[in-house]
Protein backbone atom coordinates (compact mmCIF):
# COMPACT_ATOMS: atom_id res chain seq x y z
CA UNK A 1 0.00 0.00 0.00
CA UNK A 2 1.28 3.46 -0.90
CA UNK A 3 1.38 6.47 1.40
CA UNK A 4 -1.61 8.75 0.82
CA UNK A 5 0.52 11.89 0.86
CA UNK A 6 3.52 10.76 -1.22
CA UNK A 7 4.50 7.66 -3.17
CA UNK A 8 6.55 5.83 -0.55
CA UNK A 9 5.22 2.58 0.96
CA UNK A 10 2.77 3.20 3.80
CA UNK A 11 4.00 1.67 7.05
CA UNK A 12 1.77 3.60 9.46
CA UNK A 13 -1.95 2.92 9.54
CA UNK A 14 -3.74 5.50 11.59
CA UNK A 15 -7.37 5.88 12.55
CA UNK A 16 -8.24 9.54 12.89
CA UNK A 17 -11.56 10.73 14.29
CA UNK A 18 -13.15 13.38 12.07
CA UNK A 19 -16.43 14.69 13.51
CA UNK A 20 -16.72 11.50 15.53
CA UNK A 21 -16.30 9.29 12.46
CA UNK A 22 -13.17 7.17 12.13
CA UNK A 23 -11.09 8.00 9.09
CA UNK A 24 -8.38 5.59 7.95
CA UNK A 25 -5.01 7.06 7.04
CA UNK A 26 -2.16 5.14 5.47
CA UNK A 27 1.14 7.01 5.62
CA UNK A 28 4.87 6.51 5.23
CA UNK A 29 7.10 7.12 8.24
CA UNK A 30 7.96 10.68 7.26
CA UNK A 31 4.39 11.80 6.59
CA UNK A 32 3.21 10.02 9.74
CA UNK A 33 5.68 12.06 11.79
CA UNK A 34 4.33 15.25 10.28
CA UNK A 35 0.76 14.16 10.82
CA UNK A 36 1.36 13.10 14.41
CA UNK A 37 3.02 16.31 15.52
CA UNK A 38 -0.09 18.51 15.56
CA UNK A 39 -0.82 21.41 17.89
CA UNK A 40 -1.68 20.57 21.49
CA UNK A 41 -5.42 21.09 20.87
CA UNK A 42 -5.58 18.60 18.04
CA UNK A 43 -3.64 15.96 19.93
CA UNK A 44 -6.61 14.76 21.96
CA UNK A 45 -8.59 14.01 18.81
CA UNK A 46 -6.12 11.52 17.45
CA UNK A 47 -6.96 7.99 18.47
CA UNK A 48 -3.62 6.54 19.58
CA UNK A 49 -2.73 3.65 17.32
CA UNK A 50 0.31 1.44 17.52
CA UNK A 51 2.02 3.30 14.69
CA UNK A 52 1.24 6.66 16.21
CA UNK A 53 2.58 5.67 19.59
CA UNK A 54 5.73 4.26 18.10
CA UNK A 55 6.27 7.37 16.03
CA UNK A 56 5.72 9.62 19.04
CA UNK A 57 8.05 7.58 21.16
CA UNK A 58 10.78 7.56 18.55
CA UNK A 59 10.42 11.24 17.78
CA UNK A 60 11.27 12.15 21.36
CA UNK A 61 13.42 9.19 22.32
CA UNK A 62 16.39 8.41 20.11
CA UNK A 63 18.83 10.08 17.80
CA UNK A 64 19.09 8.59 14.31
CA UNK A 65 22.34 6.85 15.23
CA UNK A 66 21.00 5.21 18.36
CA UNK A 67 17.91 4.19 16.46
CA UNK A 68 19.91 2.56 13.67
CA UNK A 69 21.87 0.55 16.21
CA UNK A 70 18.71 -0.50 18.03
CA UNK A 71 17.02 -1.47 14.77
CA UNK A 72 19.76 -3.97 13.96
CA UNK A 73 19.36 -5.91 17.19
CA UNK A 74 17.56 -9.20 16.87
CA UNK A 75 15.93 -11.72 19.17
CA UNK A 76 18.09 -14.86 19.65
CA UNK A 77 14.97 -17.01 19.87
CA UNK A 78 12.81 -15.99 16.88
CA UNK A 79 15.24 -13.80 14.94
CA UNK A 80 12.94 -10.79 14.61
CA UNK A 81 14.82 -7.46 14.48
CA UNK A 82 13.71 -4.36 16.33
CA UNK A 83 13.29 -2.68 12.92
CA UNK A 84 10.87 -5.40 11.80
CA UNK A 85 8.88 -4.92 15.00
CA UNK A 86 8.82 -1.17 14.48
CA UNK A 87 7.54 -1.58 10.92
CA UNK A 88 4.88 -4.17 11.65
CA UNK A 89 3.96 -3.20 15.20
CA UNK A 90 3.98 -6.93 16.03
CA UNK A 91 6.55 -8.86 18.04
CA UNK A 92 7.91 -12.21 16.89
CA UNK A 93 7.82 -14.39 20.02
CA UNK A 94 7.41 -14.28 23.81
CA UNK A 95 11.17 -13.92 24.30
CA UNK A 96 11.10 -10.48 22.60
CA UNK A 97 9.66 -9.18 25.86
CA UNK A 98 12.85 -10.37 27.57
CA UNK A 99 15.49 -9.37 25.03
CA UNK A 100 13.91 -6.01 24.08
CA UNK A 101 12.60 -5.34 27.61
CA UNK A 102 14.46 -2.07 28.17
CA UNK A 103 13.55 -0.73 24.72
CA UNK A 104 9.92 -1.69 25.12
CA UNK A 105 9.51 -0.01 28.49
CA UNK A 106 9.25 3.60 27.22
CA UNK A 107 6.79 2.39 24.62
CA UNK A 108 4.69 0.62 27.25
CA UNK A 109 4.67 3.79 29.36
CA UNK A 110 3.31 5.61 26.30
CA UNK A 111 0.57 3.08 25.69
CA UNK A 112 -0.40 2.01 29.18
CA UNK A 113 1.16 4.52 31.54
CA UNK A 114 2.64 1.53 33.38
CA UNK A 115 5.34 -1.10 32.86
CA UNK A 116 4.40 -3.75 35.40
CA UNK A 117 1.68 -6.37 35.19
CA UNK A 118 -0.88 -6.31 37.97
CA UNK A 119 -3.62 -8.88 37.74
CA UNK A 120 -4.22 -12.49 36.96
CA UNK A 121 -1.33 -14.96 37.28
CA UNK A 122 -1.54 -18.40 35.62
CA UNK A 123 -2.19 -20.99 38.31
CA UNK A 124 -0.26 -23.91 36.87
CA UNK A 125 2.55 -23.26 34.50
CA UNK A 126 3.92 -19.74 34.81
CA UNK A 127 7.28 -21.20 35.83
CA UNK A 128 7.78 -23.42 32.79
CA UNK A 129 6.96 -20.68 30.29
CA UNK A 130 10.48 -19.33 29.77
CA UNK A 131 11.94 -22.80 29.32
CA UNK A 132 9.27 -23.70 26.80
CA UNK A 133 9.97 -20.52 24.85
CA UNK A 134 13.35 -22.06 24.09
CA UNK A 135 11.52 -24.59 21.92
CA UNK A 136 10.98 -21.79 19.40
CA UNK A 137 14.74 -21.29 19.11
CA UNK A 138 15.50 -25.02 18.96
CA UNK A 139 12.93 -25.62 16.20
CA UNK A 140 14.34 -22.71 14.20
CA UNK A 141 17.90 -23.97 14.65
CA UNK A 142 16.86 -27.46 13.60
CA UNK A 143 15.25 -26.11 10.43
CA UNK A 144 18.41 -24.14 9.67
CA UNK A 145 20.60 -27.20 10.33
CA UNK A 146 18.52 -29.30 7.94
CA UNK A 147 18.73 -26.55 5.31
CA UNK A 148 22.52 -26.47 5.73
CA UNK A 149 22.60 -30.29 5.52
CA UNK A 150 24.14 -30.54 9.00
CA UNK A 151 22.17 -33.64 9.82
CA UNK A 152 24.09 -34.67 12.91
CA UNK A 153 23.41 -31.29 14.52
CA UNK A 154 19.78 -31.47 13.38
CA UNK A 155 19.22 -34.85 15.02
CA UNK A 156 20.79 -33.61 18.27
CA UNK A 157 18.41 -30.67 18.25
CA UNK A 158 15.47 -32.94 17.46
CA UNK A 159 16.23 -35.06 20.55
CA UNK A 160 16.46 -31.97 22.69
CA UNK A 161 13.12 -30.72 21.35
CA UNK A 162 11.43 -34.05 21.98
CA UNK A 163 12.65 -34.12 25.56
CA UNK A 164 11.14 -30.72 26.36
CA UNK A 165 7.93 -31.56 24.47
CA UNK A 166 7.50 -34.78 26.41
CA UNK A 167 7.89 -32.98 29.75
CA UNK A 168 5.40 -30.41 28.52
CA UNK A 169 2.84 -33.00 27.44
CA UNK A 170 3.15 -34.85 30.71
CA UNK A 171 2.53 -31.63 32.64
CA UNK A 172 -0.54 -30.86 30.53
CA UNK A 173 -2.17 -34.27 30.73
Amino acid sequence: MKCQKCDKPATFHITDLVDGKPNELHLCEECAHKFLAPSADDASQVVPSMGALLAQHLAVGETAEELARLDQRSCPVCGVTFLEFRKQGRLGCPHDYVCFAEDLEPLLVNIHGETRHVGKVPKFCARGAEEQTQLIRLRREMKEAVAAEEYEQASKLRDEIRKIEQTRDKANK
Partner: protein
Amino acid sequence: MDFSNLNLQELAQTSGEWLRGSGPESDIVISSRIRLARNLADFPFISRATDTDRAEIGKILRGRIETLHQQGKFTGQLIYVDVSELEAVDRQFLVERQLISREHADAEGARAVVIDQREQMSVMINEEDHLRIQVLKSGLDLGSAWEQINELDDHIEARVTYAYNDRFGYLTACPTNVGTGVRVSVMLHLPALVITQQIDKVFRSLQKINLAVRGLYGEGSQAQGDFYQVSNQITLGQSEEELTKKVADVVPVLIDYERQARDFLIRESQETLHDRVSRAYGILRTAQTISSEETMHLLSSLRMGVNLGLIRDVAIPTVNKLFVHTQPAHLQKLTGMELDSSDRNIERATYLRRHLSGEAPKAGQN
Protein backbone atom coordinates in the same frame (compact mmCIF):
# COMPACT_ATOMS: atom_id res chain seq x y z
CA MET B 1 -19.04 -36.15 22.89
CA ASP B 2 -17.47 -34.55 19.83
CA PHE B 3 -17.73 -31.12 18.33
CA SER B 4 -20.92 -30.79 16.36
CA ASN B 5 -20.87 -29.70 12.75
CA LEU B 6 -21.53 -26.17 11.74
CA ASN B 7 -24.72 -25.70 9.81
CA LEU B 8 -24.76 -22.08 8.76
CA GLN B 9 -28.14 -22.41 7.08
CA GLU B 10 -29.59 -23.51 10.39
CA LEU B 11 -27.65 -20.94 12.40
CA ALA B 12 -28.91 -18.17 10.09
CA GLN B 13 -32.51 -18.93 11.10
CA THR B 14 -31.80 -18.21 14.75
CA SER B 15 -30.15 -15.37 16.59
CA GLY B 16 -27.56 -15.38 19.35
CA GLU B 17 -28.68 -14.90 22.94
CA TRP B 18 -26.96 -11.54 23.07
CA LEU B 19 -29.54 -10.23 20.57
CA ARG B 20 -32.57 -11.20 22.64
CA GLY B 21 -32.64 -7.81 24.31
CA SER B 22 -33.13 -9.48 27.67
CA GLY B 23 -30.17 -8.23 29.73
CA PRO B 24 -30.05 -5.20 32.06
CA GLU B 25 -30.45 -1.76 30.41
CA SER B 26 -31.01 -3.47 27.08
CA ASP B 27 -32.91 -0.51 25.61
CA ILE B 28 -29.53 1.22 25.26
CA VAL B 29 -26.91 -1.43 25.95
CA ILE B 30 -26.98 -4.11 23.25
CA SER B 31 -24.26 -6.35 24.61
CA SER B 32 -21.34 -6.76 26.99
CA ARG B 33 -18.24 -8.49 25.78
CA ILE B 34 -14.92 -9.50 27.29
CA ARG B 35 -12.06 -11.02 25.37
CA LEU B 36 -8.70 -12.39 26.47
CA ALA B 37 -5.58 -12.56 24.28
CA ARG B 38 -3.36 -15.56 25.02
CA ASN B 39 -0.35 -17.22 23.40
CA LEU B 40 1.36 -20.56 23.82
CA ALA B 41 4.85 -20.26 25.31
CA ASP B 42 6.51 -22.66 22.90
CA PHE B 43 5.55 -21.12 19.55
CA PRO B 44 6.43 -17.85 17.82
CA PHE B 45 3.69 -15.23 17.62
CA ILE B 46 1.56 -15.43 14.48
CA SER B 47 3.58 -12.95 12.39
CA ARG B 48 6.69 -15.17 12.72
CA ALA B 49 4.91 -18.52 12.72
CA THR B 50 5.53 -20.89 9.80
CA ASP B 51 2.67 -22.86 8.22
CA THR B 52 3.84 -25.87 10.24
CA ASP B 53 3.73 -23.81 13.46
CA ARG B 54 0.20 -22.61 12.72
CA ALA B 55 -1.01 -26.11 11.92
CA GLU B 56 0.60 -27.42 15.13
CA ILE B 57 -0.87 -24.62 17.28
CA GLY B 58 -4.29 -25.33 15.77
CA LYS B 59 -3.97 -29.05 16.42
CA ILE B 60 -2.86 -28.60 20.05
CA LEU B 61 -5.58 -26.09 20.91
CA ARG B 62 -8.31 -28.04 19.17
CA GLY B 63 -7.28 -31.17 21.06
CA ARG B 64 -7.16 -29.41 24.44
CA ILE B 65 -10.55 -27.75 23.98
CA GLU B 66 -12.08 -31.03 22.82
CA THR B 67 -10.78 -32.76 25.96
CA LEU B 68 -12.23 -30.01 28.17
CA HIS B 69 -15.52 -30.33 26.33
CA GLN B 70 -15.59 -34.08 26.96
CA GLN B 71 -15.00 -33.40 30.64
CA GLY B 72 -18.06 -31.15 30.65
CA LYS B 73 -16.17 -27.91 31.29
CA PHE B 74 -18.27 -26.07 28.73
CA THR B 75 -22.02 -25.72 28.91
CA GLY B 76 -23.93 -26.93 25.86
CA GLN B 77 -22.79 -28.01 22.43
CA LEU B 78 -19.58 -26.72 20.93
CA ILE B 79 -19.04 -26.14 17.23
CA TYR B 80 -15.54 -26.24 15.73
CA VAL B 81 -15.14 -24.26 12.51
CA ASP B 82 -12.07 -24.44 10.28
CA VAL B 83 -12.17 -20.81 9.10
CA SER B 84 -9.54 -21.37 6.39
CA GLU B 85 -11.88 -23.87 4.69
CA LEU B 86 -14.89 -21.54 4.62
CA GLU B 87 -16.20 -19.62 1.62
CA ALA B 88 -15.92 -15.82 1.84
CA VAL B 89 -19.67 -15.45 2.42
CA ASP B 90 -19.55 -17.86 5.37
CA ARG B 91 -16.63 -16.04 6.93
CA GLN B 92 -18.52 -12.78 6.51
CA PHE B 93 -21.54 -14.44 8.14
CA LEU B 94 -19.50 -15.17 11.28
CA VAL B 95 -18.27 -11.56 11.34
CA GLU B 96 -21.83 -10.23 11.12
CA ARG B 97 -22.68 -12.59 13.93
CA GLN B 98 -19.85 -11.11 16.08
CA LEU B 99 -18.32 -14.58 16.43
CA ILE B 100 -15.06 -13.78 14.64
CA SER B 101 -13.23 -10.54 13.89
CA ARG B 102 -12.98 -9.04 10.43
CA GLU B 103 -9.21 -9.62 10.63
CA HIS B 104 -9.76 -13.33 11.33
CA ALA B 105 -12.12 -13.57 8.34
CA ASP B 106 -9.73 -11.80 5.98
CA ALA B 107 -6.50 -13.47 7.16
CA GLU B 108 -4.77 -16.39 5.44
CA GLY B 109 -3.40 -19.69 6.69
CA ALA B 110 -4.56 -22.26 9.23
CA ARG B 111 -7.08 -20.70 11.59
CA ALA B 112 -10.27 -21.70 13.34
CA VAL B 113 -12.98 -20.74 15.78
CA VAL B 114 -14.82 -22.72 18.43
CA ILE B 115 -18.28 -21.41 19.32
CA ASP B 116 -20.99 -22.59 21.65
CA GLN B 117 -24.46 -23.10 20.33
CA ARG B 118 -25.91 -20.26 22.39
CA GLU B 119 -23.31 -17.96 20.83
CA GLN B 120 -22.19 -16.66 24.21
CA MET B 121 -18.64 -17.86 23.77
CA SER B 122 -16.17 -17.98 20.93
CA VAL B 123 -12.52 -18.99 20.88
CA MET B 124 -10.55 -17.81 17.86
CA ILE B 125 -7.43 -19.84 17.10
CA ASN B 126 -4.52 -18.23 15.22
CA GLU B 127 -5.93 -14.73 15.07
CA GLU B 128 -3.46 -11.94 15.94
CA ASP B 129 -2.66 -14.07 19.00
CA HIS B 130 -2.80 -17.86 19.21
CA LEU B 131 -5.95 -17.64 21.29
CA ARG B 132 -8.64 -15.00 21.48
CA ILE B 133 -11.30 -16.07 23.97
CA GLN B 134 -14.56 -14.10 23.96
CA VAL B 135 -17.71 -14.09 26.06
CA LEU B 136 -20.73 -12.13 24.85
CA LYS B 137 -23.78 -11.25 26.97
CA SER B 138 -27.04 -9.44 26.32
CA GLY B 139 -27.35 -5.99 27.93
CA LEU B 140 -25.05 -4.60 30.60
CA ASP B 141 -23.68 -7.71 32.28
CA LEU B 142 -19.91 -7.38 32.60
CA GLY B 143 -19.69 -9.05 36.00
CA SER B 144 -20.99 -12.40 34.85
CA ALA B 145 -19.09 -12.10 31.55
CA TRP B 146 -15.84 -11.76 33.52
CA GLU B 147 -16.70 -14.66 35.81
CA GLN B 148 -17.44 -16.91 32.85
CA ILE B 149 -14.37 -16.01 30.80
CA ASN B 150 -12.06 -16.21 33.82
CA GLU B 151 -13.22 -19.75 34.50
CA LEU B 152 -12.83 -20.71 30.84
CA ASP B 153 -9.31 -19.28 30.82
CA ASP B 154 -8.45 -21.31 33.96
CA HIS B 155 -9.61 -24.52 32.30
CA ILE B 156 -7.54 -23.91 29.18
CA GLU B 157 -4.53 -22.76 31.19
CA ALA B 158 -4.55 -26.04 33.13
CA ARG B 159 -3.74 -27.81 29.85
CA VAL B 160 -1.33 -25.53 27.99
CA THR B 161 1.57 -23.29 28.98
CA TYR B 162 0.73 -19.69 28.25
CA ALA B 163 3.43 -17.18 27.32
CA TYR B 164 3.67 -15.21 30.55
CA ASN B 165 6.30 -13.43 32.59
CA ASP B 166 6.12 -11.79 35.99
CA ARG B 167 7.10 -8.38 34.75
CA PHE B 168 4.82 -7.95 31.72
CA GLY B 169 2.10 -10.52 32.43
CA TYR B 170 0.45 -12.37 29.54
CA LEU B 171 2.64 -11.78 26.48
CA THR B 172 0.89 -10.76 23.28
CA ALA B 173 1.94 -10.17 19.66
CA CYS B 174 1.12 -6.47 19.96
CA PRO B 175 2.34 -4.53 23.03
CA THR B 176 -1.05 -2.75 23.15
CA ASN B 177 -2.58 -5.96 24.59
CA VAL B 178 0.19 -7.10 26.92
CA GLY B 179 -0.37 -7.59 30.67
CA THR B 180 -3.92 -8.75 31.26
CA GLY B 181 -4.65 -9.23 27.55
CA VAL B 182 -8.17 -8.19 28.38
CA ARG B 183 -10.52 -6.09 26.27
CA VAL B 184 -13.74 -5.20 28.04
CA SER B 185 -16.32 -3.67 25.72
CA VAL B 186 -19.91 -2.60 25.81
CA MET B 187 -22.00 -1.98 22.70
CA LEU B 188 -24.33 0.97 23.07
CA HIS B 189 -27.13 2.33 20.90
CA LEU B 190 -26.86 6.14 21.12
CA PRO B 191 -29.15 7.68 18.48
CA ALA B 192 -30.30 10.67 20.57
CA LEU B 193 -26.71 11.74 21.32
CA VAL B 194 -26.03 11.60 17.57
CA ILE B 195 -29.15 13.66 16.71
CA THR B 196 -28.38 16.28 19.35
CA GLN B 197 -24.74 16.37 18.14
CA GLN B 198 -23.31 15.66 21.57
CA ILE B 199 -21.63 12.42 20.59
CA ASP B 200 -18.24 14.00 19.76
CA LYS B 201 -18.11 15.63 23.15
CA VAL B 202 -18.82 12.30 24.81
CA PHE B 203 -16.05 10.61 22.79
CA ARG B 204 -13.50 13.21 23.70
CA SER B 205 -14.20 12.83 27.39
CA LEU B 206 -13.97 9.03 27.08
CA GLN B 207 -10.60 9.29 25.36
CA LYS B 208 -9.35 11.47 28.18
CA ILE B 209 -9.95 8.63 30.64
CA ASN B 210 -8.25 6.12 28.30
CA LEU B 211 -11.36 4.47 26.95
CA ALA B 212 -11.63 3.74 23.24
CA VAL B 213 -14.72 4.17 21.08
CA ARG B 214 -15.23 2.06 17.98
CA GLY B 215 -17.97 1.23 15.49
CA LEU B 216 -20.10 -1.90 15.24
CA TYR B 217 -17.44 -4.25 13.92
CA GLY B 218 -14.42 -3.13 15.92
CA GLU B 219 -11.24 -1.40 14.95
CA GLY B 220 -11.56 1.16 12.18
CA SER B 221 -15.19 0.35 11.43
CA GLN B 222 -17.85 3.01 10.92
CA ALA B 223 -20.44 3.69 13.57
CA GLN B 224 -23.31 2.17 11.59
CA GLY B 225 -26.80 2.41 13.01
CA ASP B 226 -25.62 4.68 15.85
CA PHE B 227 -23.96 1.71 17.56
CA TYR B 228 -20.78 2.38 19.49
CA GLN B 229 -18.40 0.09 21.34
CA VAL B 230 -16.73 1.54 24.39
CA SER B 231 -13.70 -0.38 25.64
CA ASN B 232 -10.55 -0.13 27.72
CA GLN B 233 -7.46 1.13 25.92
CA ILE B 234 -5.00 0.08 28.62
CA THR B 235 -4.22 -3.56 29.45
CA LEU B 236 -1.09 -3.28 31.62
CA GLY B 237 -0.68 -2.07 35.18
CA GLN B 238 -4.28 -2.57 36.27
CA SER B 239 -6.05 -5.77 37.22
CA GLU B 240 -8.81 -7.34 35.11
CA GLU B 241 -11.34 -6.39 37.78
CA GLU B 242 -10.18 -2.75 37.80
CA LEU B 243 -10.32 -2.56 34.01
CA THR B 244 -13.77 -4.13 33.95
CA LYS B 245 -14.97 -1.78 36.66
CA LYS B 246 -13.72 1.25 34.76
CA VAL B 247 -15.88 0.39 31.75
CA ALA B 248 -18.77 -0.75 33.94
CA ASP B 249 -18.68 2.55 35.85
CA VAL B 250 -18.78 4.77 32.79
CA VAL B 251 -21.66 2.98 31.05
CA PRO B 252 -24.42 4.18 33.44
CA VAL B 253 -23.20 7.74 32.82
CA LEU B 254 -23.51 7.22 29.06
CA ILE B 255 -26.93 5.64 29.49
CA ASP B 256 -27.96 8.66 31.52
CA TYR B 257 -26.71 11.09 28.84
CA GLU B 258 -28.58 9.19 26.14
CA ARG B 259 -31.78 9.17 28.23
CA GLN B 260 -31.44 12.91 28.87
CA ALA B 261 -30.97 13.53 25.16
CA ARG B 262 -34.07 11.43 24.41
CA ASP B 263 -36.08 13.35 27.03
CA PHE B 264 -34.88 16.59 25.51
CA LEU B 265 -35.99 15.51 22.03
CA ILE B 266 -39.41 14.45 23.34
CA ARG B 267 -39.81 17.68 25.26
CA GLU B 268 -38.52 20.14 22.68
CA SER B 269 -39.42 18.52 19.39
CA GLN B 270 -41.73 15.60 19.88
CA GLU B 271 -43.45 16.07 16.50
CA THR B 272 -40.14 16.13 14.62
CA LEU B 273 -38.94 13.05 16.49
CA HIS B 274 -42.22 11.18 16.03
CA ASP B 275 -42.17 12.12 12.34
CA ARG B 276 -38.62 10.86 11.93
CA VAL B 277 -39.40 7.56 13.62
CA SER B 278 -42.67 7.05 11.72
CA ARG B 279 -41.08 7.81 8.37
CA ALA B 280 -38.29 5.36 9.11
CA TYR B 281 -40.87 2.70 9.98
CA GLY B 282 -42.86 3.59 6.84
CA ILE B 283 -39.89 3.19 4.53
CA LEU B 284 -38.76 -0.06 6.17
CA ARG B 285 -42.26 -1.51 5.73
CA THR B 286 -42.77 -0.45 2.15
CA ALA B 287 -39.41 -0.11 0.35
CA GLN B 288 -38.86 -2.35 -2.67
CA THR B 289 -35.09 -2.05 -2.72
CA ILE B 290 -32.86 -0.77 0.09
CA SER B 291 -29.14 -0.62 0.87
CA SER B 292 -27.54 -1.94 4.02
CA GLU B 293 -26.50 1.57 5.14
CA GLU B 294 -30.01 3.00 4.77
CA THR B 295 -31.45 -0.01 6.57
CA MET B 296 -29.10 0.46 9.53
CA HIS B 297 -29.88 4.15 9.65
CA LEU B 298 -33.67 3.64 9.58
CA LEU B 299 -33.63 0.67 11.97
CA SER B 300 -31.78 2.90 14.42
CA SER B 301 -34.64 5.42 14.39
CA LEU B 302 -37.18 2.62 14.61
CA ARG B 303 -35.38 1.08 17.58
CA MET B 304 -35.41 4.37 19.46
CA GLY B 305 -39.10 4.86 18.53
CA VAL B 306 -40.00 1.47 19.98
CA ASN B 307 -38.04 2.20 23.18
CA LEU B 308 -39.80 5.55 23.56
CA GLY B 309 -43.24 4.01 23.04
CA LEU B 310 -43.81 5.92 19.79
CA ILE B 311 -44.12 2.63 17.89
CA ARG B 312 -46.06 -0.06 19.66
CA ASP B 313 -46.47 -2.95 17.28
CA VAL B 314 -42.81 -4.03 16.98
CA ALA B 315 -40.72 -5.76 19.66
CA ILE B 316 -37.09 -4.88 20.40
CA PRO B 317 -35.76 -8.43 19.79
CA THR B 318 -37.29 -8.22 16.29
CA VAL B 319 -35.50 -4.95 15.57
CA ASN B 320 -32.23 -6.31 17.01
CA LYS B 321 -32.51 -9.37 14.83
CA LEU B 322 -33.21 -7.28 11.72
CA PHE B 323 -29.96 -5.36 12.24
CA VAL B 324 -28.05 -8.61 11.87
CA HIS B 325 -30.26 -10.55 9.46
CA THR B 326 -30.30 -7.77 6.84
CA GLN B 327 -26.49 -7.83 6.55
CA PRO B 328 -25.15 -9.12 3.20
CA ALA B 329 -23.97 -12.58 4.25
CA HIS B 330 -27.05 -13.26 6.39
CA LEU B 331 -29.40 -12.41 3.52
CA GLN B 332 -27.54 -14.82 1.26
CA LYS B 333 -27.64 -17.58 3.87
CA LEU B 334 -31.34 -16.99 4.58
CA THR B 335 -32.28 -17.17 0.90
CA GLY B 336 -29.74 -19.90 0.21
CA MET B 337 -28.56 -18.01 -2.85
CA GLU B 338 -25.53 -16.05 -3.90
CA LEU B 339 -26.77 -12.50 -4.49
CA ASP B 340 -25.07 -9.47 -6.01
CA SER B 341 -25.46 -6.07 -4.44
CA SER B 342 -28.60 -5.01 -6.32
CA ASP B 343 -30.30 -8.37 -5.77
CA ARG B 344 -29.43 -8.12 -2.10
CA ASN B 345 -31.09 -4.71 -1.89
CA ILE B 346 -34.32 -6.19 -3.32
CA GLU B 347 -34.10 -9.23 -1.05
CA ARG B 348 -33.39 -7.01 1.97
CA ALA B 349 -36.49 -4.89 1.27
CA THR B 350 -38.60 -8.05 0.89
CA TYR B 351 -37.25 -9.44 4.17
CA LEU B 352 -37.97 -6.17 6.00
CA ARG B 353 -41.52 -5.92 4.61
CA ARG B 354 -42.20 -9.49 5.59
CA HIS B 355 -41.00 -8.97 9.17
CA LEU B 356 -42.46 -5.53 9.81
CA SER B 357 -45.84 -5.50 8.10
CA GLY B 358 -47.58 -8.24 10.01
CA GLU B 359 -47.21 -10.87 7.27
CA ALA B 360 -44.55 -12.72 9.25
CA PRO B 361 -45.01 -14.58 12.53
CA LYS B 362 -44.51 -12.55 15.71
CA ALA B 363 -41.20 -11.69 17.37
CA GLY B 364 -38.89 -14.49 18.38
CA GLN B 365 -39.81 -16.66 15.41
CA ASN B 366 -38.92 -16.37 11.77
